[in-house]
């Protein structure tokens, strides 16, 4: 890995870092993004995907709510195809919820959130799965679903078209300094352990829950509290719209319809380290029980997997903990605060407000660099085209029809039948040096995210690693096994019903039809999870690492 140089190094490949990278390039600043894992592999890709109308924060966190309103509207303009306009409901179930209603209505009014009370009959007509326990329903049209993977990739690809570079699976292990001035970063490839330097004029720390750890490498403190949230994925959409409990934000009070699934979320627990995210059975149970209070069918739907993410709550020094803490964000200018020139951190916040966070932190960094070009990320669409609608690929519309009729195109071959991913959707990513394992392919294409959890498509992907990317069979088989293990880590937490039956097919296929367990043993390396993690990709991570979405 050669030493390089650039204008700004952005650390962190979540929504914030991706937004920062794009913002920088739109202002004509040369930049490199360095991410320890893959894009959207930390907090962003493990979010529940709710595009917040702001309703959830309008009572206790007014500023966050106002930002959600504004940013939601911007995202619908600039990142059209990452957003599904589902709308949302806030529903009261208990007496306590009922008492919260006037505060919610007042909060919506104060923060400018559109909110309409529906009769129960009307609400049930629109959303037949609403539980019998629901007593009051508010319609909040600006709730939506935000595809977090698509959002990050869209930002990064836009920046790349303007010359930005992206280094995934690359960790910042130190900083280069000239007295109080930052002059670069030391990086290490997490797969090959190769090290190198990137010389730069400025570094933006956009690592969310990891920002304290990154800042510590420089000897400065950023007080960020990692707060774990666990989510459960059901294999189908139970409701058309996002369903929120109308109460003080708590555990398991959101059901988000995301593409073909429903996501139940979430819990809230402080953790010691952003990568120690064990999923507890009690959390999974609570998600399902709480979800069932709002929607029928939650307990009988097929649970596909559970996963955990980590919120990067910024400690403003208040006594508040976890959910009580603000979902606001803050820009830390370390030149002002710590006397270190060329280092800026952005902490707190949420995926919905990623663009605004990026704008604010780039404002500060650009000022120090003497760049006066204003931010244009609120106007330039993510695909950089003039069309009002984002023309990033929208998968299902391209798939043709099930059976050829007349001149209609025939059904195209699929690589992942569950998620309707075609071979040509995967092919370009296999050429991208930022894509290093099959989980990376999954995040960009959704392969392996459906009910069978990669039982079938993992082989097809491994095959392409050999034919398209020139990997040897051992590495490709290893990548396939790692991919399946990552899926397995999430499935294990919802191991009953149809998903359990499915997994007998998975083990039957891979152990009996392919004999993959022996393939791994015969490679003279221990099976994934048992090893020390040398070059084994995500599968070699310690087991406590939370399951991926």
């Amino acid at each position, binding site marked *: 890995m050669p030493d390089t140089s650039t204008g700004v190094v952005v650390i962190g490949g979540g929504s914030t870092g991706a937004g920062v990278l794009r913002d920088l390039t739109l202002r004509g600043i040369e930049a490199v993004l360095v991410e320890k894992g893959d894009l959207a592999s930390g907090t962003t890709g493990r979010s529940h995907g709710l595009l917040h109308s702001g309703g959830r924060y309008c009572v206790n966190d007014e500023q966050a709510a106002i930002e959600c309103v504004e940013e939601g509207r911007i995202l619908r303009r600039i990142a059209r195809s990452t957003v599904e306009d589902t709308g949302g409901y806030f529903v009261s179930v208990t007496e306590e919820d009922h008492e919260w209603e006037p505060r919610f209505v007042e909060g919506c009014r104060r923060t400018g959130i559109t909110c309409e009370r529906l009769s129960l009959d009307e609400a049930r007509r629109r959303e037949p799965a609403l539980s019998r326990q629901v007593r009051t329903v508010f319609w909040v049209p600006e709730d939506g679903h935000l595809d977090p993977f698509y959002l990050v990739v869209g930002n990064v690809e836009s920046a790349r078209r303007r010359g930005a570079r992206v280094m995934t699976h690359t960790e910042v292990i130190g900083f280069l300094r000239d007295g109080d001035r930052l002059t670069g970063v030391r990086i290490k490839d997490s797969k090959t352990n190769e090290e190198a330097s990137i010389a730069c004029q400025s570094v933006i720390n956009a690592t969310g829950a990891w920002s304290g750890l990154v800042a510590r490498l420089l000897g400065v403190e950023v007080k960020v509290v990692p707060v774990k949230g666990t989510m459960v994925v059901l294999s189908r959409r139970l409701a058309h719209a996002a369903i929120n409990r109308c109460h003080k934000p708590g555990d398991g009070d959101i059901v988000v319809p995301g593409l073909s699934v429903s996501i139940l979320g979430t819990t809230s627990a402080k953790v010691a380290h952003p990568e120690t995210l064990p999923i507890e*059975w009690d959390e*999974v*149970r609570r998600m399902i029980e709480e979800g069932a209070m709002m929607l029928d069918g939650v307990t009988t739907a097929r649970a596909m997997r559970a996963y955990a993410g980590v919120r990067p709550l910024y400690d403003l020094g208040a006594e508040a903990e976890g959910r009580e803490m603000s979902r606001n964000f803050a820009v830390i200018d370390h030149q002002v605060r710590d006397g270190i020139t060329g280092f800026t951190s952005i902490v707190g916040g949420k995926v919905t407000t990623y663009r605004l966070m990026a704008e604010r932190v780039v404002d500060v960094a650009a000022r120090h660099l003497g760049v006066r070009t204003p931010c244009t990320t609120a106007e330039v669409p993510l695909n950089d085209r003039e069309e009002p609608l984002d023309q990033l690929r929208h998968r299902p519309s391209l798939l043709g029809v099930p059976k050829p009729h007349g001149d209609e195109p*025939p*059904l*195209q*071959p*699929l*690589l992942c039948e569950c998620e309707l991913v075609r*071979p040509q959707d995967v092919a370009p990513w296999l050429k991208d040096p930022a894509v290093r394992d099959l989980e990376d392919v999954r995040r960009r294409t959704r392969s392996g995210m459906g009910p069978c959890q990669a039982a079938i498509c993992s*082989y*097809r992907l*491994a*095959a*392409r690693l*050999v*034919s398209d990317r020139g990997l*040897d*069979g*051992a590495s*490709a*088989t290893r990548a*396939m*096994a790692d991919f*399946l*293990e990552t899926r*397995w880590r999430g499935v*294990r*937490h*919802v*191991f*009953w*019903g149809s998903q*359990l*039956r499915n*997994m*007998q*097919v*998975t*083990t*039957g*296929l*891979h*152990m*009996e*039809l*392919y*004999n*993959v*367990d*022996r*393939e*791994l*043993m*015969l490679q003279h390396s221990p*099976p*994934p*999870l*048992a090893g020390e993690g040398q070059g084994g990709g995500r599968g070699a991570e310690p*087991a406590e690492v939370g399951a991926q979405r």
Partner: protein
Amino acid sequence: MKTDVAVIGTGLSALAAARTVQQAGRQVVLVWPGLSSLYFLFATIDVIGYPTATATESVADPAEAVARLITREPSHPYARAGMDAVHAGTRLMLEWFKEAGLAWQGALNRNFLLPTATGTPKPCCLAPASMTAGDLSRPEPIVFCGFTGYQDFAPELAASNLKRQWGAADVSAIRVTAPGYGPDRLFTSVDLARSFEDATFRDAVAAQLREHVSGDGARVGVPGVLGLTRPGETFAAFQEAVGHPVFEIPTVPPSVIALRLFDRLRKHLQEAGIEIIWAAPAHAAQVTDERCRSVLLKAAGHEFPVEAASYVVALEDWVDGAFRAGVHTVRDPFFHEPITWNKVPTDRTAESLFSTQPFEQVGYALTDRLQPADENGKPLARNVFCAGGAMAGYDPSGTKSRGGMAIATGYRAAREALAA
């Protein structure tokens, strides 16, 4: 309706049990819950591939290895079936295959070592004749051949893995075009298999192969799609056209090799006048005076009983729905007994996917006569016998022993049912 033995299940153990009853000259009714586990889990009949779930040295003599296993683990399904059932069941099935026109090869005292679609050598005892030219104890070079646009067999991946394990110079990969198929068309293994029954199509593929594969006794490994309804004929014609030994490699469901086996055996039973009740999940056993009087089936919106003198429950534990896993409790659909209870669902699994899984071990506790038993070892019904995946401790994935266990336990349960 009243019959001698009702066999409940669609997999290999159910078929072995039904054949056993038929051969004894008694009346048998087959009750099938739905799709056969054969579609998902079988292509070859693996008796025992490795002595333990973690051993890397494969078994050379399956009969001897099973005998050893029986001594070592007296509660293992093989021990419950007994060595006699292993021999008699295998003989019964091989004779049946022959009578039904299925060309299979193999014997209990040796394993083939056949390459899988990942290019991994896999030990297996009995296999369709169309697969055995792939045996790695033979020295001839191997050319893996895939089809452009066909995703379920990747010759490059298979060749790369097998090269490393089996001698670098002798393995190569090619891809040919299957006329009418290509990267723009959605097709499955079954579509290809039907096309291979057409001589023009077959010859067009064979012509390309002849061009790519040069002499020196090379053999050609292709995905298992060489014909569906007349496999023997199709295979022979293709092999002759290619001019080299050809072997098939099984692929993901829908696995054509498994479909052929299942469809042929099913038709053969039906031709012999055996009644099959199809797509009817059994959901309750009516037990009085320690005997099962009938099993209730649900089909097409109504419920009806099947009455038999005795019953063989020959189901895979999960894929064909023998057990229903709730969040904490696993129940069986006949007696509605809790089979197992887990405080936390994760406890049903091992940390790694590729290791011995607790959920695979789940099954009925059994009496010595293979009757499902309660916790005190007392039979739930004296005339019900269990075979296949529904037995406790039945976990063939690590040792590669699914087919052998299915046949031995199916045979033994049927013998017990006949004696009841």
